[in-house]
């Protein structure tokens, strides 16, 4: 089923609710493997597409949920703007080739390296329209960036993987595309020293918007990356200051070529260092200083990439390893991004919640999708 309008989509959901037909909600399918497998009738949202409003002077864009991410990025680029949260492209990691839709990005709250400075997808999302599990069209938030009118269901929808409603329209706060960008690179640090270097960069007054570390592998030496963006003079000034600041950690250089700098960050954004690995892939969010600790606990068998100054650990580990057991007291959440179905079933894709919160989550699900037809089981 591929509805062409919000109303058609609402009718489809309403009819499915009446019959108890389960729906598998799908955008471009580029991250269809993220989350537990869902059986049900395919509800393709790519029929809902197009940018309905874009005001560069107000830094806002409103678009149908099935619009390809690529279209939105191109539309923004024409006016020298971009989405602040740098959404990851999952195709290399999953070996998929669909076109990511903006609705899919929101449903999974996909963010990239800039998350530490510009916020996650949910932070830029200022409005949603969606269809709940009974076929009712619901609006929350709007098209202005400051809005505290009523409860913030916008945040609730971001990252709910379609289990609370089918997104039909999303609105974002966007940002200017900076005229320059540079990356400060430190060679040869171990995980602990890299963590300390990233922390030094992020606690300096230079507005760092990317801090990542790739540990040494059999073929490559370890490298730590710190990014600044902005006006040309400012980028030159801040990257120079950071180079001085980080000189004590190891060999420091500056990649001032924008294209080469951007390419490095695309690789980091898409977790290429682990995507090519053979085992299961986990994405773990922890306190930044716990990142290196966790990597040390995971041991030599794990391939690791650090982002978010150490707070985001990507790990490719031997199949069926339970990373949550390894965390043992380190607070945060671990998501099993890629594995076979049996492992996903056994360990659970998403971090189990404490009973008190699980009760709240289940309560929300039963109220927004009382018939259990929206991506049932997707989140476990």
């Amino acid at each position, binding site marked *: 089923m591929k509805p062409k309008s919000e109303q058609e989509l609402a009718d489809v959901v309403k009819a499915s609710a009446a019959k108890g037909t389960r729906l598998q909600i799908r955008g471009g399918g580029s991250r269809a493997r993220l989350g537990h497998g869902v059986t049900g009738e395919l509800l393709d949202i790519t029929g809902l597409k197009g940018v309905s409003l874009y*005001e560069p*002077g*107000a830094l806002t864009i409103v678009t149908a949920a099935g619009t390809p991410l690529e279209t939105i990025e191109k539309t923004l680029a024409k006016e*020298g703007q971009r989405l602040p949260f740098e959404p990851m492209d999952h195709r290399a990691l999953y070996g998929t080739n669909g076109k990511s839709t903006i609705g899919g990005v929101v449903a999974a709250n996909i963010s990239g390296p800039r998350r*530490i400075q510009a*916020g*996650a997808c949910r*932070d830029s999302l200022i409005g949603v329209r969606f269809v709940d599990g009974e076929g*009712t*069209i*619901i*609006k*929350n938030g*709007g098209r*202005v*960036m*400051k*809005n*505290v*009118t*009523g409860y*913030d269901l916008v*945040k*609730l929808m*971001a*990252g*709910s993987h379609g289990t*609370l409603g089918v997104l039909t329209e999303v609105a974002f706060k966007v940002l*200017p*595309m900076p*005229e320059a960008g540079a990356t400060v690179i430190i060679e040869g640090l171990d995980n602990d020293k890299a963590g300390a270097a990233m*922390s030094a960069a*992020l606690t*300096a*007054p230079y*507005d760092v918007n990317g801090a990542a570390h790739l540990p040494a592998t059999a073929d490559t030496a370890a490298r730590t990356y710190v990014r600044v963006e*902005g*006006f040309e*003079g*400012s980028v030159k000034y*801040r990257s120079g200051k950071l180079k001085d600041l980080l000189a004590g950690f190891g060999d420091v250089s500056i990649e001032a070529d924008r294209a080469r700098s951007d390419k490095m960050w695309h690789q980091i954004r898409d977790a290429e260092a682990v995507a090519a690995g053979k085992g299961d892939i986990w994405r773990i*969010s922890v*306190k*930044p*200083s*716990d990142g290196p600790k966790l990597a040390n606990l995971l041991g030599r068998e794990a391939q690791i990439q650090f982002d978010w100054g150490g*707070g*985001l650990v990507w790990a490719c580990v031997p199949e069926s390893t339970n990373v949550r057991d390894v965390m043992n007291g380190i*607070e945060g*959440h671990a*998501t099993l991004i890629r594995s076979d179905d049996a492992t996903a079933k056994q360990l659970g894709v*998403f*971090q189990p*919640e404490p009973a*008190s919160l699980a009760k*709240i*989550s289940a309560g*929300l699900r039963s*109220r*927004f999708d009382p018939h259990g037809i929206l991506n049932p089981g997707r989140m476990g």
Partner: protein
Amino acid sequence: MEMPVPDQSVLERKASIVARLQLVLPEEAVISDPNETRAYECDALTAYRCQPLAVVLPGSTEEVAACLKICHEEGVPVVPRGAGTSLAGGSLPTADSIIIGVSRMNAVLETDYDNRFIRVETGRTNLSVTGAVEENEFFYAPDPSSQLACAIAGNIAMNSGGAHCLKYGVTTNNLMGVKMVTMEGEIVDIGGAHLDAGVYDLLGVICGSEGQLGIVTEATLRILRKPEGARPVLLGFDRSEVAGACVADIIKAGVLPVAIEFMDRPCIRATEDFAHAGYPDVEALLIVEVEGSEAEIVEQLDKIKTIARRHDPAELRESASAEESAAIWKGRKAAFGAMGQINDYICLDGTIPVSQLPLVLRRMEELSKEYGLDVANVFHAGDGNLHPLILFDANKPGDLETCEAMGAEILKLCVEVGGCLTGEHGVGVEKRDLMLTQYNEGDLEAQVRVKDVFDRKWLLNPAKVFPLITTRTRREAA
């Protein structure tokens, strides 16, 4: 303002309810003498007052939990309170309610510069969060105008903003975790020193829920390193439209100032009489502030000045010293006080798409004539958050009502042009009955469902946010 009829059975049980609360709290933490509870009869929306049944001031999360458990068992409504600075009546009590205030809980629990967060009890004031970290050159970004007095608890409840949120975001963008007590008295931890939610973003729903989903007792907040410096430039224009176009051009050019503040002529004149900031007598004034090193500030201000000159400003005043910067901000910061000197006023808080500014200013002028009340405008221009101040005379019978009616018209106008009723103050009781102009019944039902999950008996701050008619059956079933 209609409020629910107090539950007679609760009023009759006052003595026994107070006695139960006294069993779980120190003596001085339970206030039930009407002479003493009077201090809690309103918040900063002083037009509405009501004495609560009693006030409790717990000293710990466990004490909050014990109080909530009792209130839940007794079926007593609870009104959470931070510092009582809400402009929307967010902590206005009802006669049958217990106020649970967190003001005694104001400790800093953990400061972690390497990981860039601070964990505080929520009775702590906004400014004193920055106060706890500024010796190390860090700050907490959200800066509501009431930051000297307002508590983090209230900031979280209302998702408060401030002048600098164009760059740094509002409370929800700077809140990493909470410890919260549910109406049933259960203590839950959501989020923490790591980023984002593992499953549903409950933190995002709790922030801005106006104390209706739980009482937040601890918060993990993002702290940031202070920029090397900051400097404002003052721009004056003969027409508001031109000032609005200048704001849009600055933003389109890729400059992202930390603040863009706008004042119109009535506001400029009033603040000049009061603060003598030396503002030019123009139709519209902008204060644009940028941050960074000296060279970065110059780079950004040069771009801003070039853009501004294309709009033929009547005044372009760049600060050359800390004193001049302070002078530029002086009038803006004094604006509300200045207006208070010459008149009573109500302060609105709608947001509009920036492109609609000229239209909205023109319509407000027409409404001002129609209702016979003056309006002064001061607002955050970068994000379209308006604060029209409608002046009235509290001693003149009927003037407040006229003023409120005009305020409602302005807020409806904000919604009509694509904006919203409240950008940073919250709905409270003040804008409760306007909610159906922005949302339809289905939209509100979806929000109300969330409260059903967190507060089954509808006891937490029950008469706020939603029109009473929308929630009547739920409140009465409780």
